[in-house]
């Protein structure tokens, strides 16, 4: 294992069962860092963006960040990058836990999976011993069972596991990849790609926990950051105490908490399903953290029926709660546990059920189609659990729901009821209530998503400064900067939540001190811009045209019916051209030659 800026990768040819080691050095690392950036570059270079995402021609990349495994706060993260089956765009999904750091310690910064195994297999990394092994007896098992069985077979309970559940095996288009049981590379259906390759899991145990980097220099910077993170009201107090679910009441009180498939923007029973309720009802037993994290926002929860697990996070609780009109925190938490065990993206799972509920209530789904299952009515806590299982196993109507809300609603003749961008479901913020965030939704490179440029932070939470949510002026610039900065954070392997305290200069200090680079903050931000443009280039070549930079008609035609944001519509169309221009793209949304040259693409 060389110095940190030398990327050691493992190429695993599943079709021919061959494993090869390679090294990337120099310019490529400076240009793309690691994690999301470097893996996107590899994917772009190695596959035709037009490939069928579930065919053996697609590749699946597990990529640790440049600083994963170092002393950088929250530096334990990894990304899964592939062409996504839900959106057809480049898909990259980020996860915490401990798996990423262990992978890095094992001397493998990145794994590229190619082809398709003829029967279920898993990859075992035991120090230098790297093998493709038979997974027949684990196939079909849920995430918790698989993780336990794999560790047993491996003979070391400290090994770290990343795997798919039944949903990934069944190629549910929004299947997740789960590591350390409860942490998810959740969005964009990366688990379905893993399933399509007959790859059940990766288990890794490093011989030693050392990597070669400028430890002393990095530590100096980290110490200062950690102190600030601990003293910050959000990262030092709010997130540890209430987790991300601190947001339920905030977003609801601001009038942009999507309710009943985004038909309304306030939910009467928010207090019942909020983060505060999780504490008050006594479900929360502890807060937990990922590798090297001083924030520890994870929720360890035990339900009155004895079921234990982690979650729900804000987005999950909302998707199965307000978006389905459900006010039962017990059922919402149970649905979350199920998603973790079965390996489903919680946001798409919950919101797909919400979409089906609207279709059912409007008479576009027949009762017969439900096979005696509970009626798909808003507020039905029975439904969220029942149909979550059906989706993962593709049983009955679950087989159709497994395609996500867009394809499902389209098959019923009414795609307008799917609250998606580029066929991926929107998360828990109504874009009619936050103009910058709406622009961010339509320009996100992986479809409807909040973590490609979290504009809620300035527009609602006032971090790093408070912007008026309905104001349009200046928003394109904010969106661009946030998107580029997020691409950096995802590429160095840190958690996005550090950005509630840290800024561009801080990340720049970390990269320069740990790796020995000499970036200026502007140069580093340009790396983020390069990554963002590369992803866009992939999508354009995959046939996702700028026409798809759009929100469902509901948001531009139907004003929010009640609450503090009553009467508001999304005005993203008024600022989209300005955003394109700021990005140096043509008025038509295509990247100009000049911009590509300028970024060295």
């Amino acid at each position, binding site marked *: 294992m060389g110095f940190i800026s030398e990327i050691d990768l493992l190429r695993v040819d599943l079709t021919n069962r061959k494993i090869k080691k390679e090294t990337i050095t120099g310019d490529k690392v400076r240009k793309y860092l690691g994690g999301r950036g470097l893996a996107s570059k590899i994917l772009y270079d190695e596959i035709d963006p037009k490939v069928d995402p579930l065919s053996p021609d697609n590749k699946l990349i597990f990529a640790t960040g440049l600083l994963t495994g170092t002393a950088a706060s929250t530096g334990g993260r990894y990304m899964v990058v592939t062409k996504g089956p839900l959106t057809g765009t480049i898909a990259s999904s980020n996860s915490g836990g401990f798996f990423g750091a262990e992978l890095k310690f094992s001397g493998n910064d990145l794994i590229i999976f190619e082809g398709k195994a003829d029967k279920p297999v898993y990859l075992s990394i035991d120090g230098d011993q790297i093998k493709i092994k038979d997974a027949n007896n684990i196939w079909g098992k849920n995430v918790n069972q698989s993780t336990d069985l794999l560790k047993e077979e491996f003979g070391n309970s400290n090994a770290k596991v990343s795997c798919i559940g039944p949903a990934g095996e069944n190629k549910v288009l929004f299947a997740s990849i789960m590591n350390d049981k409860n942490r998810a590379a959740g969005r964009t259906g990366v688990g379905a790609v893993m399933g399509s390759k007959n790859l059940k899991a990766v288990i890794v145990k490093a011989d030693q926990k050392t990597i070669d980097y400028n430890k002393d220099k990095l530590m100096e910077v980290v110490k200062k950051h950690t102190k600030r993170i601990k003293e910050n009201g*959000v990262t030092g107090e709010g997130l540890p105490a209430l987790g991300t679910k601190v947001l339920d009441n905030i977003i609801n009180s601001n009038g942009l908490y999507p309710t009943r498939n985004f038909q309304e923007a306030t939910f009467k029973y928010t207090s019942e399903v909020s983060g505060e309720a999780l504490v008050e009802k006594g479900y929360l037993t502890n807060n937990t953290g990922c590798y090297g994290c001083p924030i520890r926002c994870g929720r360890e929860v035990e339900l009155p029926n004895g079921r234990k697990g982690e979650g729900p996070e804000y987005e999950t609780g909302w998707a199965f709660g307000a978006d389905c009109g459900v006010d039962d925190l017990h059922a919402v938490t149970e649905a979350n546990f199920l998603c973790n065990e079965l390996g489903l993206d919680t946001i798409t799972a919950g919101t797909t059920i919400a979409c089906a509920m609207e279709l059912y209530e409007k008479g576009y789904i027949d009762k017969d189609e439900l096979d005696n299952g509970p009626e798909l009515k808003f507020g039905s806590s029975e439904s969220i659990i029942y149909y979550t299982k059906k989706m993962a196993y593709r049983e009955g109507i679950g087989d159709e729901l497994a395609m996500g809300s867009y394809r499902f609603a389209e098959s019923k003749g009414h795609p307008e009821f799917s609250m998606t961008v580029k066929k991926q479901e929107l998360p828990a913020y109504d874009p009619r209530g936050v103009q910058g965030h709406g622009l961010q939704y339509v320009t996100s490179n992986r479809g409807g998503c909040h973590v490609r440029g979290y504009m809620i932070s300035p527009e609602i939470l006032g971090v790093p400064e408070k912007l008026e949510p309905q104001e349009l002026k200046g928003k394109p610039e904010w969106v661009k900067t946030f998107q580029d900065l997020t691409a950096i954070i995802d590429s160095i392997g840190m958690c996005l939540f550090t950005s509630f305290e840290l800024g561009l200069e801080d990340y720049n200090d970390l990269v320069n001190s740990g790796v020995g680079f000499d970036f200026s903050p502007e140069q580093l931000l340009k790396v983020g811009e390069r990554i963002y443009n590369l992803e866009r280039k992939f999508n354009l070549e995959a046939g996702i045209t700028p026409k798809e930079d759009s929100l469902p008609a509901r948001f531009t035609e139907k004003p929010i019916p009640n609450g503090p944001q009553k009467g508001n519509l999304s005005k993203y169309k008024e600022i989209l051209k300005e955003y394109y221009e700021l990005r140096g793209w043509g008025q038509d949304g295509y990247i100009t030659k000049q911009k590509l040259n300028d970024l060295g693409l």
Partner: protein
Amino acid sequence: MVVKVKFHSLFKLNLKSAGINYYIDQPISIEELIKKLDNDFEGYFSEKLLDTGQIKPGSIILINGKNVLHIDKLDTLIEDGDNVTLFPPSAGG
């Protein structure tokens, strides 16, 4: 006239209270409201919401769902029937 004040997040958990109602004769400002709250909760709110006489960055004070930072900040007037909602600096995602 009545003003309803709602506490959420750490305010609600730490104070074990979901809020308080005040009866007022004439409109009062947010600043005056915080003084009233301080009287009832031993100075808790100015410590949590204010920083050198200004609204602390990240603290959220809403009147009927509108952030007072975009109205008149601490001088924003609260009138009969208004709902005030208070949050300490918070974030998630």
